[in-house]
């Protein structure tokens, strides 16, 4: 059981990435698909991800580092055989991040349109590439070993292509629902209507593609099909179907905040279904138990993750409550409270003398003493030197000050 625990964290991470980062990718797709005249739609899609996209992206890092710590052999096999789609996915991430940063510095125009096109295309490339990689793993095309599988036919296989396309479609559908909810919060009725129609359209399409993917899996990845249709598999499938249908119903009823969660459930259930269907194998001939690192590593990792989550969970809750509460929406802020003017404390030269003493003591201790304690004390003195001297030095003398700096501008 202990050896499966990191896998559960990994699956949670994959689900969080597919949902949260997926919605950000989907927003990029909407930017690409909207016509030139629909500038408000594109701007809305872009602003919605502003404060959160970095945090959403980090789930991917979380998944990878857990994989290589807990199941190193599996990660080595996956990364070497699937180097092409993983590399393409990363290129997409770089292009999207860059395009996003650039876009905020450009007013609308021809250049802005070109940047938005890069943003949109990379938002398709990354979910497709990662989805195709998942399809290759699910269909058993990644054998154990250093680049033991085929570099191209592994992921450009029926399952790879089907899951790749499905990933793009789910991202697109998640984004529609999320952007409708965001538009409702901002109170823009026209945008709400626009994304409501888009949510229904993309929801139906994603549902149809999901059914199509099931057919492909039936033909191409029989063990997964068998897993999905026996044991707990059908439960996951029906949870996903219920989530999808409920999303559509909630969107029709204009209850977008609730629709967010239904849509997330539909995606998370697919990932759970995949895990159930493939269990207990991670790769062909390699079970989770066999792939797991030693006991001490797994224990250390679980402790690390639990402690990390204790810090992370409230921080994430804060970020999402501020974002979803509308605190970061565009528009004028509440304004900053006035800060009282206070006379600045004069810098004493005594302080600089103490700092100089620390520098001297630190140098002597670090360089001349050949003991750990000497070096530790020395480094502490050097840190003290920098800390003590920083504040007075970091405050620039200004022409109007007592010190009177008449440095002329050249």
């Amino acid at each position, binding site marked *: 059981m202990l050896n499966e625990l990191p896998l559960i964290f990994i699956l949670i991470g994959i689900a969080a990435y597919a949902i949260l980062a997926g919605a950000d990718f989907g927003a990029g797709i909407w930017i690409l698909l909207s016509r030139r005249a629909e500038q408000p739609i594109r701007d809305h899609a872009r602003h919605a991800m*502003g*404060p959160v996209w*970095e945090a959403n992206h*980090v789930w*991917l*890092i979380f998944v*990878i*580092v857990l994989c*290589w710590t*807990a199941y*190193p*052999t599996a*990660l*080595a096999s996956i*990364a*070497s055989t699937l180097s092409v789609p993983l*590399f393409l996915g*990363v290129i997409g991430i*770089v292009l999207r*991040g860059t395009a996003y*940063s*650039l876009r905020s*510095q450009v007013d609308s125009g021809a250049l802005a349109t070109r940047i938005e096109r890069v943003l949109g295309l990379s938002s398709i490339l990354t979910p497709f590439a990662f989805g195709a990689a998942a399809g290759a793993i699910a269909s058993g095309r990644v054998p154990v070993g*250093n*680049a033991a599988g085929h*570099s191209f036919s592994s992921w450009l296989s029926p399952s790879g292509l089907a899951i790749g396309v499905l990933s793009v479609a789910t991202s697109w559908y998640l984004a529609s629902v999320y952007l409708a909810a965001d538009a409702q919060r901002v109170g823009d009725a026209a945008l709400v209507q626009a994304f409501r129609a888009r949510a229904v359209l993309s929801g139906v399409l994603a549902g149809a593609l999901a059914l199509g993917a099931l057919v492909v899996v039936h033909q191409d990845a029989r063990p997964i099909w068998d897993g999905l249709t026996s044991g707990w598999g059908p439960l996951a499938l029906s949870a996903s179907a219920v989530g999808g249908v409920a999303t559509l119903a909630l969107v029709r009823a204009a209850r977008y905040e609730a629709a967010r969660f239904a849509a997330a459930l539909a995606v998370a259930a697919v990932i759970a279904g995949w895990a159930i269907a493939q269990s207990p194998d991670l790769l062909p001939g390699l079970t989770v138990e066999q792939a797991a690192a*030693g006991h001490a*590593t797994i224990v250390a*990792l679980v402790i*690390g993750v639990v402690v*990390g989550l204790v810090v*992370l969970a409230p*921080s994430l809750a804060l*970020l999402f409550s*501020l*974002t979803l509460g509308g605190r*970061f929406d565009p528009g004028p*802020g*509440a*304004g*900053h*409270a006035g*800060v009282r003017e206070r006379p600045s404390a004069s810098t004493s030269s005594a302080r*600089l003398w103490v700092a100089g003493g620390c520098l001297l003591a630190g140098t002597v201790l*670090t*360089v001349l003493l*050949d003991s750990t304690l000497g*070096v530790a004390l020395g480094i502490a003195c*050097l840190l003290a030197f*920098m800390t003590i*001297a*920083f*504040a007075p*030095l*970091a*405050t620039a*003398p*200004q022409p109007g000050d007592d010190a009177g*700096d008449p440095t002329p501008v*050249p």
Partner: protein
Amino acid sequence: VDDVAGGAIRVMPVQEYLNQARQLQALSLTVHIPLVCFGIAFPSMVLFAEWRWLRTGDPLYREIARRWSKVMLTLFAVGVVTGTILSFELGILWPDFVGSFGSVFGLGFALEGFSFFLEAIFIGIYVYGWERLSPRAHLLSGLPIALAGVLGSTFVIAVNAWMNHPGGFHVRNGKAVDVHPWAALFGNSFLWHEIVHMYLAAYLVCGFLVSGWYAFCFLRGRFARYERAALAIPLAAAALVAPVQIVVGDWAARVVAEQQPVKLAAIEGLGHTTKGAPEHLLGWYEKGEVRYGIAIPDMLSLLAKHDPNATVAGLNVVPPRDRPPINVVRIAFQTMVGIGTLLAALAAFYLFVRVRTRRLPRSRWFYRALLAAGPLSFVALVCGWIVTEVGRQPWIVYGVMRTTQAVTSAHGIPVGYATLAVVYLGLALAVAWVLLRLSRTPLSEESAHAQ
């Protein structure tokens, strides 16, 4: 007997493009590392400016913090994507390194993942929270960014220290067993000097690059209240750190001398074990000795062992196949030390003028030097990492696993190399352009008129 025969017959997968894989990894690290410097050092400077605003009520400092926070977010976003490339590359390029030892060092990256997460969350809150949070809450929301920047790089450096000085496991049948990940990462005597040296380097690079920008403003004749205040903060950090870095560097070299004598021999081009070894400045290593260099008798023994007559191990203690490329390591080391010395001299000049005359230097030459100091400090940083990492070769895990054993068997490394080179070039241009745009945003009314 069968086992031995089988082992001898088994052909290692050959990677034709090993050197390209190494260069690709080095390129990716070189692109990422200045962003790490900003992650470590810049938040504390931004927070200092904001704290000055809360302390004095001078809107100028609010303006500085606010403008810098946009730069911080841009560089963080770029760091996110370049860091993602690195985390993928480790598995894609070096699968057998991750496969064999992921259970030992992976914990470091897992912990780094969390601090990265924390940084990403609070940087969003901080940058979007101007005017939307109370001033005090806003300042507090910045503290986790500074903390996570420092913590995250500690974890990554712990992995690097482990690669240089591995421990906390045994090898059986090519796999790591009896793994003690905490001890491997944090009980490592090689960790502490690497951390301190890197943090100070981060303050040097960030401090000199940011103050270099305002030196450029001075030289262009734009040096009003805002530029002065904004110059003083990074320059104070860099000027205080530069002399300290020399002392810390000396400590780092002594640890290397003790724990990686072959690397030290490569740094110094010491072909043969020598009693009372000399130190050579400049020159070129050839056939077991440094030629055309300036020799200082006994100096190496004195520096490395605190005894002019001490014996220093030469490259001859290991067979040639276990030696790193000598001249690359040696030239990188000399470049780092040379630049570090120049930076410390510049810092000493600045500190002298500030303390004696209580004003900023007026010489245009000082500002020209400051402008050059930014890029130079970055060169020194990269050279330092070349010393550590090329000096570690031919091992990926020092003395345990060779780089040739770790590399992927997949094809297409040159394609990936070329693609990423183009992508990085585009990324660099994009960042430069965004930063330039940010610098051209006019100052807010309030701080422009406050005098």
